[in-house]
């Protein structure tokens, strides 16, 4: 294997890693907003799925992918609102509300899909106009010939779909919002010690709703990316556990935006590896089976959730409905 070939392999792997990280990144950031405000969100999966369904369906019907995106985000926000009403206003159990939403999304997408498209719960393949397309950044072609940087710019950084750029720009934005603004300070305080916010004369409920609804928007973007960018149709259960992997990534990231980027890229990389190299040959002696490489992201999830990777301190008021004490 010569150098040029190896380099090409690396470029392809990087490109794929980025493409596959995007859904995780949206969901992970959604979880970050929600959990930083003290609302555990196990319903990321359901929100991704419902958004994927509605974005694909509306894109297909209207022929306009942006309308599809809007529908996906809207559906995800409706789910987020239900989560908020159950766990903030009525102080229900946040995890149970999230699980319920996951079931609801799973069933609802199939039932509506069957009735709507009569294709076994899937949506028809999306035509060109109903999908997102790659954006070519300026000078991508002129710079392509520069060694190393050229291909990196032209094939990895440039040539991604619009939501990819949005996802990656959301990282610095989230960091700035959480740590440099009043909104962020209050949002984090609500997740750590809501009584401190309440006694300061600020509404805990308002900030928790804001966080949950932001999570709704972000999951909506993630789901829309899944159905109209990463794939080009809705398929049953197409979120396939990414909402849960995003939760693991969130814990791995210790609820910090930059770490979230790193951990989502790691998961994306593992998925890319399993797609690109299903059978890894170890020195010609032993072949790692495809099932193993495909299972890697899930294995890492289990390892992280079991707490083998460092100590992560969750927001202290997480999971607890706020009840005013005297």
């Amino acid at each position, binding site marked *: 294997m010569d150098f040029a070939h190896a380099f090409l392999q690396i470029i392809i792997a990087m490109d794929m890693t980025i493409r596959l990280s995007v859904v995780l990144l949206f969901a992970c950031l959604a979880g970050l907003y929600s959990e930083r405000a003290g609302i555990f969100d196990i319903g990321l999966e359901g929100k991704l799925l419902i958004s994927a369904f509605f974005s694909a369906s509306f894109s297909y019907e209207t022929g306009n992918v942006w309308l599809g995106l809007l529908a996906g985000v809207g559906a995800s926000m409706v789910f987020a609102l239900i989560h908020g009403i159950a766990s903030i206003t009525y102080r229900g159990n946040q995890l149970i509300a999230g699980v319920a939403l996951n079931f609801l999304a799973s069933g609802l997408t199939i039932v509506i899909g069957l009735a709507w498209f009569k294709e076994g719960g899937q949506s028809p393949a999306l035509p060109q106009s109903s999908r997102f397309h790659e954006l070519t950044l300026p000078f991508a072609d002129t710079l392509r010939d520069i060694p190393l940087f050229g291909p990196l710019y032209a094939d990895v950084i440039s040539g991604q779909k619009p939501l990819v750029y949005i996802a990656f720009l959301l990282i610095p934005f989230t960091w700035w919002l959480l740590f*440099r*603004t*009043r*909104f*962020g*300070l*209050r949002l*984090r*305080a609500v997740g*750590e*010690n809501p*009584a*401190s*916010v*309440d*006694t*300061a*004369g*600020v509404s805990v409920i308002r900030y928790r709703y804001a966080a949950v609804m932001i999570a709704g928007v972000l999951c909506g973007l993630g789901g829309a990316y899944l159905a109209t960018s990463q794939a080009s149709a809705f398929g049953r259960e197409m979120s396939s556990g990414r909402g849960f992997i995003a939760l693991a990534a969130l814990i791995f990231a210790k609820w910090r935006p930059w770490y979230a980027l790193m951990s989502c890229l790691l998961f994306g990389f593992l998925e890319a590896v399993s797609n690109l190299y299903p059978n890894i040959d170890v020195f010609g002696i032993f072949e790692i089976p495809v099932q193993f490489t495909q299972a890697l992201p899930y294995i890492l999830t289990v390892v992280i959730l079991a707490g083998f990777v460092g100590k992560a301190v969750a927001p*202290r008021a997480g999971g607890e409905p706020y009840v*005013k004490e*005297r």
Partner: protein
Amino acid sequence: MANENLQERQETVAPAIELVGISKAFGPVQANKDISLSVARGSIHGIVGENGAGKSTLMSILYGFYKADAGEVFIGGVKTRIPDSSAAIAAGIGMVHQHFKLVENFTVLENVILGMEDGGLLKPSLAKARKLLKELSDEYELSVDPDALVENLSVGHQQRVEILKALYRQADILILDEPTGVLTPAEADHLFRILVGLRDQGKTIILITHKLREIMEVTDTVSVMRRGEMTATVKTKDTSPEQLAELMVGRKVLLQIDKKPATPGAPILEIENLQVVDDKGVERVKGVSLEVRAGEILGIAGVSGNGQTELLEVLGGYQKATGIIRVNGEEIDLTGKYSDGQSRRHRGIAHVPEDRQSEGLIMDFMAWENAIFGYHNEPAYNKNALMMDNLAIRAETEAKMERFDVRPPNPKLEAKNFSGGNQQKIVLAREIERNPDLLLVGQPTRGVDIGAIEFIHQQIVELRDQGKAILLVSVELEEILSLSDRIIVMFDGHIMGERDPANTDEKELGMLMAGMETDGGAA
């Protein structure tokens, strides 16, 4: 200035706070009954009363947490409606809660500006707060590192952050709810200096406490509450602790426990060179040796976190240790199979833990269930191998509650529904009635009413007079001084010295607690 002031104004300045006819009921419980109170500007006003007397309710109404059923509030002579905390802040009222309302992993500055940020970006507010904090720390002894994380600050410093928060909100009236419960004597003195400084600058301070010594030391006027009513308001210099205690409880109270000199017998507990390393690998107890004899109370004084807790945990059987401990002359297992609480109980050790809510009781369980924990395997409580004899347990609990004056004497009430004093009585009843040779008592009267304190102290002294050995750990020096026959002071895992309560005082003990040698020598 409005002239709706109901009282005829004799002073030229309207009172900082005036409450007229405040009433508040929670269901059938009348927490505040027609309360009227006037607090002069630039004064420190104490409010004393037992737990449940309605002090906190009254202050919560003033701070907008509760809405009063009836009555009016005047701030600086102007009738003011306080529907929520932000209205209270706007009216210039600041509150330092008993349990701090701080975000632990925020910096001091972030905590100070939270809720009072100027504009969407934090930077200008942080700079402004930094400047103000510097001014305040120079003016009053309120120095705190503005960039420190709150969780890394001592309790005393955290309290300063709360005060700074109120001052940042330009509070003219500062309410402090049981501010010294968590402080060392030195920290409490420091707090009082801050309060006096603030008063001299014209701030009005309301101090809620159950410690009469503090009232006498720092307040100008004092109001007494009992069962939801304001029973008296007097000038501090015209009253005495005894009179205040009587007003609070409604009967004469013995503030000084009446006890005979001890007649110590054989050593019951002997500890030699005990060392404890906690889960985090920190050495908590560094070679402690002591002895408690039958018929005496050994008091261990010290700021919490200096090894006393771990000492009790080892004796109670839920902390491993090295060294030698003998009970009744027999060595006990410190690390092995017989180092658990059950084995300790078989050796005649009973334990009233420091934190009754997490270690002494299960708050969601009923009194009769709580009354047998640790002893639940005894034949008297069990019909056979499978079934417990609930009727017998309930009957016994009822009798115990009667003897220990637990109110209400209802075994089916959950532990969390009793007041602090009555919870403690349930724990005491369970442990004392086992007739132990050695009783370990940690913070017996933390958060307990004056009336109940008297009762609990009497029970402990009575047990001593029956010839039992008692090891008392308390952060309340007053309690240590009045109960103990001998006093040991712990600091940083060591014993700093032993003193005879008759020949020492809070000042000397306070110095030992801070790790400073005194020339008092062993008694």
